């Protein structure tokens, strides 16, 4: 007589403390042997209530919170918040400031992709690129430090322009660094791209077709890997600026992890191209808008002029009021569409500030992406999604 054995799915807790969890991701995995049947992600372990805090801070004070959301692409988020305020107030920014913003936005993209790619490779088993990339990241953070005084949380891009101007020696060094950096990407690419183990781990893993990508709210690299040409640098608010710089957008064919890896590498080359172009055509001029309603007076005026001192005090303590309204503004952050929904209400603080984090949308598709994959592939998929919990949990 045949005896049937009842087999139950195995419940496995993954994280929150796990090197491949990229922070504090907790997953409750339902596995059939080693095959994942369900992945229930528990997020919120890094929830700091940024949106609530922003409601209680004036606009200038709210800006540093944006550095701390996605802590590997700081300036992209500062820029989004600053530009959303500028957009609401209708302030125009000097060209030099915009060019420098593009330079630092793209440096941030490289900073992010270096971390994303190489920690991904580390999860999969390749350790060397990680060490190489962190050397380059160190140099990038040095640029951050030279321009803003802080290695990570720069608070450099302010509503109305930039906090400080870049001196020519810094720009020269960035330019020099670029020349070396392209060869470093090539090395990084070379060690991974044809690596048999790396390909075995990545090719045809975590495939997502285009129609599903729309349904899951994908943006950025994740959406482009499915073959859809969509880049907010081309189609969004900065398109006038990027028109001169951005040559091509890498697009995936199959939508698997390997595609996304290749695209991120290509995007770094593109970013180098953009930075070089922007630096070559960098115009002279102001780095702040002249609208004194929201811009603090220059430091040298404050030493001589009482009105300037009062002006500075009022702007820094009381801030500026914005009329009632709503706006949504989004930019192409390294991870995807990073958006700020700002509801204002006749006061000096945002009435509601919703932060649209791309990682939040990518992570929630983890269940579908990892379905009937092996447990080891889950690590690959988390890596390819480029999750950072600062922005997912907010």
């Amino acid at each position, binding site marked *: 007589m045949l005896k049937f054995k009842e087999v139950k799915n195995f419940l496995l807790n993954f994280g929150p403390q796990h090197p491949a969890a990229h922070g504090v991701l907790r997953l409750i995995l339902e596995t059939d042997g080693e095959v994942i049947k369900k992945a229930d992600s528990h*997020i*919120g372990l890094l*929830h700091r209530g940024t*949106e*609530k*805090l922003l409601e*209680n801070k004036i606009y200038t004070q709210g800006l540093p919170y944006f550095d701390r959301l996605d802590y590997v692409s700081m300036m992209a988020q500062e820029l989004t918040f600053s530009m959303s305020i500028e*957009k*609401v*107030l*209708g302030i125009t920014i000097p060209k030099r400031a915009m060019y420098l913003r593009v330079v630092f936005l793209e440096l941030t993209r490289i900073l992010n992709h270096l971390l994303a790619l190489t920690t991904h490779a580390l999860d999969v088993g390749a350790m060397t690129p990680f060490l190489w990339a962190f050397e380059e990241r160190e140099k990038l953070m040095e640029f951050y430090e030279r321009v803003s005084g802080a290695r990570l949380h720069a608070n450099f891009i302010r509503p109305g322009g930039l906090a400080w101007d870049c001196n020519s020696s810094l720009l020269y060094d960035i330019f020099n660094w670029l020349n070396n950096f392209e060869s470093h990407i090539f090395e990084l690419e070379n060690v991974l791209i044809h690596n048999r183990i790396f390909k075995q781990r990545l090719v045809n893993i975590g495939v997502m077709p285009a129609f*599903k990508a*729309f*349904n*899951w*709210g*994908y*943006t950025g690299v994740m959406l482009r890997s499915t073959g*859809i040409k*969509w880049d907010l640098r081309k*189609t*969004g*608010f900065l*398109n*006038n600026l990027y028109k001169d710089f951005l040559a091509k957008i890498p697009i995936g064919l199959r939508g698997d992890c390997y595609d996304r890896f290749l695209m991120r590498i290509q995007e770094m080359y593109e970013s180098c191209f953009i930075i070089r172009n922007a630096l070559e055509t960098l115009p002279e001029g102001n780095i702040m808008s002249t609208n004194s*309603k*929201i811009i603090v007076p220059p430091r040298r005026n404050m030493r001589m002029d009482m009105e300037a001192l009062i002006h500075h005090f*009022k702007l820094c303590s*009381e801030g*500026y*009021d*914005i*009329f009632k*309204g*709503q*706006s*949504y*503004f*989004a930019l192409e952050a390294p991870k995807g*569409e990073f*958006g700020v*929904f700002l*509801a*204002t*209400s*006749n*006061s*000096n*603080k945002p*009435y*509601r500030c*919703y932060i*649209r984090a791309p990682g*939040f*949308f990518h992570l*929630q*598709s983890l269940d*579908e992406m990892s379905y009937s994959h092996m447990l080891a592939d889950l690590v690959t998929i988390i890596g390819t999604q480029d999750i950072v919990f600062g922005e997912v*949990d*907010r």
Partner: protein
Amino acid sequence: MIILNKNQIFNRIINKKSDKQLITFNKYKVLFMLDLISLCSDVVESVDLQFDTAVTEGHINCSISVNPVNIFYTILMLTSSNLFCECNLIAITCIDNLVQDKFIKNLDKRFTLTYIFLDVKNNSRLNININFSEGYIIQSITSLFKSANWLEREIFDLFGIFFAGHKDLRRILTDYGFQGNPLKKDFPLTGYLELRYDEYKKYVGYKNIDLMQEFRVFNTESPWEKLEIVSFTL
């Protein structure tokens, strides 16, 4: 009930100050949006079409207000039409209008829920707003958009709004066993509880919050004139 018909909206846009060149450039997009509105004209309460004046090749932004009863129906119509086929649900966000206008408590329209859609093909954005009072149950759109799953959970968590038809309405961002809805305006910034290590009992646990000093808000009415909003992008 639609307030303006297609021609009226179109005329209004054309007459709108210096946007004429922009309109000609984006004419097909305007027509697209108008088609979209007429498609759901039975349910739409008010329409607000806006253009991004700073960007010549930029988006068309459209904001419509819908009766909360019809929200699922409206979104279903939009997504099943050819006009919005490559549609991406960018965000669902909520505003608590409790202290929106000083001294007036808007209790009948306490919450505003905004659905932000992005159509990749036409590069246009659509906002759908609904206003409703506390305790009103919204119909979930998780059957249309999978990405609505966590967005609705987040709103349930932070605002305490229920979504009918959502299969897995759990808290998402706050801690296990958390009580209250932090983003409501009547929830204090400091919260009610804090996580503390108890030296005697030797464990970490929630205690009532103990502040050395009351949280102080220095928000006086500014004598300065308020800045006017020039352009709104949705």
